[in-house]
Structure formats: structure tokens, C-alpha cells
């Protein structure tokens, strides 16, 4: 196609003209990957070597790699327990907003009731409310009812914080299901719970997958909410809190910090590589409605 316009250019000249494009792009990619690569390589290097020379020296013979840093942070650095805590926090905090949000999204999409639009507009408005606006009253409430430092408290908080986005994303999807599909089921005598559970939820799996990944990553990577509602007890601290404490206490203990940081990245990276398509869809849904 382009031959017509650029017939004067030979293929070779065109290829040469594209060299700056490749150089710039590859340089940017290398710059973006280097920080993570440095962390990964360092986490396998012995303590005395990390502190004395750069991580790129690791590729010079004699090679010297070790798993000791991982063994240390997992057993003595509280990272093993924190990993479990992160899971205990993230999994329920992902499932709850999806279930509760899907019910509400179904009602907003397929039921008629007074104030429907007003209520939905309020949910859109809540999408961007800074969570800082909620922290003091909720912390006081949690202190009063004894939920500070408990998983139940942080589950409820994450669920509520995740709901506006969950309702928004799922309603957009559920409202686009064909009207005939819902109506024919109603004519066949199916109740709303049946339509919802047997028809709407199964067809919404792609949207639910995007939402689940998004919410899981958000909760797994969260530091602020855990800091505030869990109150810093090591028993319940997720990895983000444990690592930020390690940064304060170890400072330059790179052998431990690099290993700990990488442990916290493993699960999100697996999710990211395995389900990148859905993750990207979730990101897109969060900003532009297709």
C-alpha cells in the first residue's frame, strides 16, 4: 500500500529510516525493565556482594548466587506469615464486592424504580471520592465496635471502597445484554434470582474476570488502608506493611529488602502474565466506556 506513495524510496532506505524508531523504543523498554531486573538479580546475590559492587557484576565469572536471602525473610523476617495475611485479606475483599456489586448492577440495569438514576449518579460520584475522606470516622467506628486490627474490618472497608467501581463496570456490561434474552426468560416464568444466577452471571464472566483482577491487584498492593485499619500488628500485617517496616528498620539491608520485595511481586506478576488481556480490559473499562 505504501509503495505507491513512497516509490522513490528503496526498501533498504526505508529500513534505514526506521532505525531511530527502533533505537528509541528499545532504549525506553530497556530503561523500564532495568529497575525490576536489578532487584531480581540482587535478591539472589550474597549479602557481602550486594553491598560492595553493582548487581550487573553478578554476570561476571565466578558466578555467585544464593537462596539464603529468601530463606531468611520467609522464616525470620515475617514474610511467610505476611504472604498468608495478604492472601487472607485480598481474596474475600475481592469476592465480596463482586457478589454484592453484581446484584446492585443487575437491579440498576434491568429493574425500574424511583430514584434509580439519582442513586446511580451518586455511585458515579463516589467513584472518585478520596478515601482519606473516610478514614477518621471509620477508624473511630472500628475502635468503638472492636474491628480495628481484624480481618473482618478490612474486608468490609475494601468491599465498600471497591463497590462503586464494581457496580459501574458490571452495570455497563449487564445493561448491554440483549433485552430479548432477559424478556424471553421472564416469559418462560423465570424469577429474577434465576435469571440473575443462571443467565446474567454466566454471560458476565469476562467483565467479572476483569473486575476480579483489578480489585485483587488493588487490595494486594494496598498499603494505606492496611496501615490505618490494621494498626501495625505483625500478626495481621500484609506484605506491603511488613516491607515498609523493613525499609525503616533495615535501611540498607538490600539482601533482605530485594528478596522480600520480589516475594510480594510474584503473585501479581503471575496474574498479570496469565490474565493480561482481562487486566488491560479492566483498566480500559475504568476510564473509557467503549
Amino acid at each position, binding site marked *: 500500500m505504501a509503495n505507491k*506513495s513512497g516509490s522513490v524510496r528503496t526498501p533498504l532506505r526505508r529500513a534505514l529510516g*526506521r532505525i531511530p*524508531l527502533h533505537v528509541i*523504543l528499545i532504549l*525506553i*523498554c530497556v530503561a*523500564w525493565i532495568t529497575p*525490576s531486573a536489578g*532487584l531480581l538479580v*540482587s535478591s539472589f546475590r550474597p549479602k557481602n556482594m550486594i*553491598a560492595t559492587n553493582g*548487581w550487573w557484576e553478578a554476570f561476571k565469572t565466578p558466578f555467585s548466587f544464593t537462596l539464603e536471602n529468601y530463606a531468611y525473610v520467609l522464616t525470620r523476617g515475617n514474610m511467610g*506469615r505476611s504472604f498468608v*495475611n495478604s492472601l*487472607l485479606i485480598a481474596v*474475600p475483599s475481592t469476592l465480596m464486592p463482586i457478589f*454484592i456489586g453484581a*446484584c446492585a448492577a443487575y437491579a440498576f440495569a434491568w429493574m425500574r*424504580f424511583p430514584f*434509580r438514576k439519582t*442513586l446511580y*449518579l451518586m455511585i458515579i*460520584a463516589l467513584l*472518585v*471520592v*478520596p478515601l*482519606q*475522606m*473516610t*478514614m*477518621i*470516622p*471509620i477508624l473511630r467506628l472500628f475502635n468503638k465496635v472492636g474491628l480495628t486490627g481484624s*480481618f473482618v474490618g478490612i474486608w*468490609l472497608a475494601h468491599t*465498600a*471502597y471497591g*463497590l*462503586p467501581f464494581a457496580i459501574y463496570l458490571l452495570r455497563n456490561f449487564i445493561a448491554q445484554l440483549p433485552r430479548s434474552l432477559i424478556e424471553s426468560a421472564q416469559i418462560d416464568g423465570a424469577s429474577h*434470582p434465576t435469571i440473575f444466577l443462571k443467565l446474567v452471571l454466566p454471560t458476565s464472566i469476562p467483565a467479572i474476570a476483569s473486575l476480579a483482577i483489578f480489585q485483587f491487584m488493588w487490595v*494486594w*498492593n494496598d*498499603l494505606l488502608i492496611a496501615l*490505618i485499619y490494621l494498626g501495625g500488628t505483625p500478626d495481621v500485617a500484609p506484605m506491603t506493611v511488613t*516491607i*515498609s517496616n523493613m*525499609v525503616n528498620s533495615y535501611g540498607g539491608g*538490600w539482601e533482605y*529488602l*530485594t528478596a522480600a*520485595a520480589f516475594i*510480594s*511481586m510474584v503473585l501479581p506478576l503471575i*496474574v*498479570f502474565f496469565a490474565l493480561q488481556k482481562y487486566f*488491560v480490559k479492566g*483498566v*480500559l473499562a475504568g476510564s*473509557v*466506556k467503549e
Partner: protein
Amino acid sequence: MHTNYIMVAIAALAVIPVFLWAYLMITEQIATHTSRKTAGVLRPWFWILPAVSLLIIFLVYPVINTIVLSFMDARSEHFVGLRNYKYIFSDSGMLVVLRNNLLWLVFFTAACLVLGLLIAVLSDRVKYESVAKTCIFLPMAISFVAAGVIWRFMYEFRPAGTPQIGTVNAILTAIFPNFEPKAWLFNRSTNNAALIVVGIWMWTGFAMVILSAGLKGISEDILEAARIDGASEIAIFFRIILPLMMPTITVVATTLIINVLKVFDIVYVMTNGNLGTEVIANRMYKEMFNFRNYGRASAIATLLLVAIIPVMIMNLKRFNTEESNG
């Protein structure tokens, strides 16, 4: 103790769906036992009740409460009028905080947009597009805390003459023999920039993904027609691609702005707001936990809300036009 938590979590996982299923069934039974008309009125409220009650308890009520607290003293006992707000805009420490947020707002947003657009446009023209985009998007999957560790290591400083273990100083001393290694995070003239770079590293992928999707939406025919007319690639970018992408760019910019106003984790992990790097969210955290001044903390949070209200209104308008268009 810990096994208890695991049991609770497993129970919760099983209980949540069962509980919700039972809730739907019971409310449906209640609805069907009333007249048809009442059922139609009741049913929607049953369906939205769990979500709406959580939103009221955890978002609506606290927001109103925080606004009220922002006009009260440290322990929320006495009304103090605008005193907390006067403090926010006059205290010298707070002015540094506001300046830093402004620096973040301008440089973070601009850099993410420019780099995101550049990478989207460049990678659109190569065969290894998906690999390149994965490299850039990858940091989005990492927590700010892990990114903080990664970049503290990047910025690590050793006195001149000794081997540098931080990548940034090592590269600079290798390229420029006369370069004095810098303690990037401790030097007041570089530390804010160093932190903003971490933010850009994490969020450029977000901008790139959305801008790239917008770019793919531009019809190939228009670009081809311009090429046949002899327009250069640069002219095509500025005259055709950029104007067509303005709506997408606006959406990305607003999302970036919402997030950058609330930036917390990077600063908390890397400098804890010391040496002139504090931002609004960190200051609020400190007022809340270190100084126990709930009045000031609430006023700072309210300031964040006020800054975000224009975006909120834009969202609502966008939703309204989308709905009326079908």
C-alpha cells in the same frame, strides 16, 4: 491464633455466596407473597440494599462527618470555625506540602501523557509491539511499596571513588567521568524529582494502554490519504492523530490527576516525607496518627475532596450524555 484466621477466611469464602444466595431467595419469597404491585416496588430495593447500606456506612456518612470534623479542634470537641483551613494555607510546612503536590500534578501528569503517547505511537509501527507494551505496563502490577524498594536500590549512593551499587549513579559516573555521585533521595534539590520519576515509571503504562487503544480506533484510511497527499509522519501526528485523540487524552489526564492528588505510598516508603518531600496524603496520615489532630487531618482530606470535585462533575456530565445517546 493464625489458624483461627485461616478458618475464618475459609468460612467467609463459603459463607459469602451462600449467604447472598439465601438473601436473594428469601427476599424473592417475601416479594412474591405480596401483591404484584408491591412486589415490583419492593424487589429492586432488596437487590440494591446490601450495596447501598455498605456505601452509606463506609463512604457517604464518613464524608459528611469528615467535613464537619474539619471545622472542629484536634479532639473533635469544640467548633473552631475556619482555623484548620487557615493553618493549611499559612503554615510553612503545609505550603511545602502544597508546592510538592503541585510539582507532582504538573510533572507526573505531563510526563505520563507524553511518554505514554510516544510509546503508543512508536510501538504501533513495529512487529514486537506487544512485547514492548508489556515491558512498559509491567510496573502497574507491582505495589508502590515494592516499587519503592526497587527505586531506593536504583538511587543508592556510595561516596565518589568507591564502586557505585545504585544503577543511576553507576551509569552516570560511567558516562561522565567527572560526575559526582548524588544521594538523590536526600538531596533537597533532587529528591522530589527522584520520587516523581518512580511515579512516572509506574503509571506511564496505564496512559500508554488507553492511548494505544484510542490510537487503534483512528481509521487507517484517513492516515493513508494524508500520506498519499505527501504529509510527513510528524505532520500527520500533530495535525491528524493528536486532534482526533484529544477526548482520550482528556480521560487519561483526569484519571492521572485523581491518582496523583492522592499519592501516598511512594513518599511513605522512600522518604517518609522528610527533607521537603511531604505530600497532602502523607501529611494527613501524620496529622492523624503522629499528631492526633483530627481537625487538621479532616481539613486536609477535605482539601483533597474539593480538588477532585471538578473531575466528579465531569464524570457525571459524561455519564449523562452517554446515557442520553443510548
